């Protein structure tokens, strides 16, 4: 089972290293031809405007949407979560995106880099031990559709991880920690 990591821009190498550590073969996805060779896909952290632009420029948006509609599991972290959201606020009105999950992503929900933070919080679907979450100029998820299950909330109730069938979105970066649980969760989806 080859796990594709979208490698247009961002921290794709960290995802690959984590996957390799837990024994999953990986492939960097940059062009539509690579998409045919993977059974799952991770959309990494990065800049959502940049990744969206490159997705559009090299014809990846429609093939990717089609694969996800056919049931391919897909996981977006931070910028990846923004690109998966059907609605984006505080972004660029014209920013290309995948529009897959029935959620609204609020970009830079915490402010500038000075507001980036780490916190330990539990995640639904993992064991009870809290997960170290790294938030970097992170979004939050709002207006979750009926088919979307929130998996993690901040203390103020804002949703930072959610799942809709074969789609997973996290506003934080498990790939920047040594905790493999979120990656294992994705591989079992």
């Amino acid at each position, binding site marked *: 089972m080859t796990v594709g990591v979208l*490698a247009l821009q961002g921290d794709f190498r960290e995802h690959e290293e984590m996957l390799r550590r837990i024994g999953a073969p990986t492939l960097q996805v940059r062009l539509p031809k690579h998409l045919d060779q993977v059974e799952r896909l991770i959309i990494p952290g*990065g800049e959502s405007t940049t990744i969206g632009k490159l997705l559009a420029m090299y014809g990846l948006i429609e093939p990717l949407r089609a694969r996800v509609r056919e049931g391919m599991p897909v996981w977006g972290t931070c910028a990846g979560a923004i690109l998966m959201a059907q609605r984006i606020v505080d972004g660029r009105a014209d920013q290309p995106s995948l529009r897959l999950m029935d959620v609204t992503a609020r970009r830079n929900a915490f402010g500038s880099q000075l507001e980036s933070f780490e916190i330990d919080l539990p995640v639904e679907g993992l064991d009870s031990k809290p997960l170290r979450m790294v938030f970097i100029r992170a979004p939050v998820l709002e207006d979750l559709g009926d088919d979307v299950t929130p998996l993690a909330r901040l203390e103020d109730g804002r949703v930072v991880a959610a799942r809709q069938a074969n789609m997973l979105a996290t506003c934080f970066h498990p790939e920047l920690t040594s905790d493999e649980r979120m990656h294992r969760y994705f591989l079992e989806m």
Partner: protein
Amino acid sequence: MDKSTWTTKVGLAQMLKGGVIMDVVTPEQARIAEDAGAVAVMALERVPADIRAHGGVARMSDPELILAIKEAVTIPVMAKVRIGHFVEAQVLEALGIDYIDESEVLTPADEEHHINKHKFRIPFVCGCRNLGEGLRRVAEGAAMLRTKGEAGTGNVVEAVRHARAVYSEIRRLQTMDEDELFTYAKNIQAPYELVRQVAETGRLPVVNFAAGGIATPADAALLMQLGVDGIFVGSGIFKSGDPAKRARAIVAATTHYNEPEIIAEVSRGLGEAMVGIEISKIPHDQLMAGRGW
């Protein structure tokens, strides 16, 4: 909740990897850069080519301009301070931008000391010409590195020299035994702990971009193939004939740096590149890469 940790500082640089950071001098240019797919913009009053042409003391930009640029885009905003000028850094931190470049492109404020970057909540990027210089900056708290190159020249030769130096030193380190590491650390004037870490992991402790003289998509892909994590373009975009098109092309070439067909395609009909300067024609005291210690 822990704010502004080492992980979040280094982490933002990780998010910029594989991307292009562009120098901009107006909010309009910042929007053009964002539209073209820049991962961040460097807000400044004059691009290095103009600093070089005008001479005089180059300082931190007017906060008014930096804030106007911050207002114009959704991507991270960086700005430059003079080497050692920790009050300019305090000012930029107070403005709430995302990253500070302690830069040799500006006129140094301190000829012995760099800023103690550990004291700040905002992350810093610093230039380096070789491994020792890079690790000294990391020891002072830099969360990201870049090659110095020779800014404002449109000539990639110095950036290549610096990238080659860093990565060949890393490769050499990996073949050394423990005893040799002590001496090597002493010779390159870098902290032993960081040298050992690089030897063990085979990579720098922080993200390293290329900067200084990059003017074409092929320049960007060259540096990416040499091993850097991403690209800074200073004067190369807005000093060229068709900035938006060139910016898009450099973004594409940075992502697809291993696909010559794509680099060929995006390099077609870009209009005039910025005028380049031969390094040997620059008076010695006007070279920027030698600033910093």
